[in-house]
């Protein structure tokens, strides 16, 4: 696969590489949703949607919407063969019970502990919790997929989250448009930088200490 050019697509393209054949995957709203564009049928990935099914296919084409068939973002979607519907209790039994191999989530902030913050408190302008906490607690692997900095240029990777954390769980990987970073007990380790991006640029756009090993690679899918 050739590398896409938009920041969001670079993130999705790189995250897709992390998914292994046969895995059950839940994609959050926003950038994570784009990951499915970089999945081939041979990878045999099953997408779970927390509003109640497995076997989610691509977005429905305009005019071809199927009644009562939406994803967790409220978009019209399609089904793949072998799909199955269930109620919310079963959906979150799947999520919290460890039956999701990978969840890919956006984040407002990630910190040196590997904790992410992805919800705001209502009344302070934010949207709420949704299924995110259960996903972070329950999935076998959590991948954060987000742009490296906020729209105003401020870093989203920080020493300590200023917003409420989603769970006391170290996420497994952070994929941004310019870097791949792995949280460890020793701190955040820079693993890869995007083609044409220098380590110094990543460091300057990061609000937390980054451990930079000798073998930082180049981001490839």
């Amino acid at each position, binding site marked *: 696969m050739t590398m896409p050019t938009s920041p969001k697509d670079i993130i999705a393209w790189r995250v897709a590489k992390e998914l292994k054949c046969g895995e059950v995957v839940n994609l959050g709203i926003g950038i994570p949703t784009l990951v499915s564009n970089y999945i081939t049928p041979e990878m045999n990935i099953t997408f779970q*949607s*927390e*509003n*109640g*099914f497995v076997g989610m296919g691509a977005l429905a084409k305009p005019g071809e919407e*199927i*009644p*009562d*068939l*939406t994803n*967790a*973002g*409220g978009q019209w979607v399609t089904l793949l063969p072998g799909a199955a*519907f*269930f*109620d*919310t*209790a079963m*959906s*979150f039994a799947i*999520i*919290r019970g460890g039956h999701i191999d990978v969840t890919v989530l956006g984040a407002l902030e990630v910190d040196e502990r590997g904790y992410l913050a992805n919800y*705001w*408190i*209502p*009344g*302070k*302008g*934010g*949207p*709420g*919790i*949704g*299924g*995110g*906490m*259960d996903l972070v*607690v*329950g999935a076998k692997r959590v991948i954060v997929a987000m742009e490296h900095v906020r729209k105003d240029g401020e870093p989203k990777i920080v020493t300590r989250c200023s917003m*409420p*954390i*989603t*769970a*006391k769980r170290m996420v497994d990987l952070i994929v941004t448009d310019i870097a791949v970073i792995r949280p460890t007990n020793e701190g955040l380790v820079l693993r890869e930088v995007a083609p044409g991006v220098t380590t110094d640029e990543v460091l300057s756009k990061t609000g937390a200490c980054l451990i930079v090993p000798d073998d930082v690679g180049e981001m490839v899918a």
Partner: protein
Amino acid sequence: MSKVKTIQEAMEFVKDGMTVMLPGFLGVGTPEALIDAICERKTGNLTVIYNDGAFPGVGIGKLIRHGLVRKMISTHTGTNPELVKAIAEGRVEIELLPQGTLVERIRAAGAGLGGILTPTGVGTSVEERKTIMELDGATYLLELPLRADVALLYAFKGDTQGNLVYRRTARNFNPIMATAADFVIAEVEHLVDVGEIEPEHVMTPGIFVDIVVRGCN
């Protein structure tokens, strides 16, 4: 004996100040005709248990717009700016909880459990004022049952005894909320005779349903 009534008859059981369970996920799987009837009668001061804020003027968004909701017990409000504004202005009280916790609390009420222990929310703002338990080295929050006075369901198909079948992602909270309210009203899109639904395919047995009303179709 048929449980089929008119929407007007059903509305006698939905009163000012009640706690109302409404299934749905961003508006999918929500009983629109029953909500319209509540708006028409202006039954207000409601505590509404619903997954999210839906959208302005859609599903429970209609109740918000008409000012009939006093409190929301929900997981997410951001898709409905009218709700976000009402919360910010103090017109609607909000109790926010994780989605898996919301559904398990409702299920616990319906299943006669005194509570459940979930790892979700530990170490976050969700754990405030909750009992925290350590078991086998893991930490859990004790979450208590959540009941309602009335649950309003939406089914694609239902028979006159209240056996219900939901369609695709419209199932969501419907089968769980059916078990956890003192009174249960089901709006069905297609009303059929008893015996027309395969016993294997019933998703909510009629024993949970008090009244069946026809939807708008």
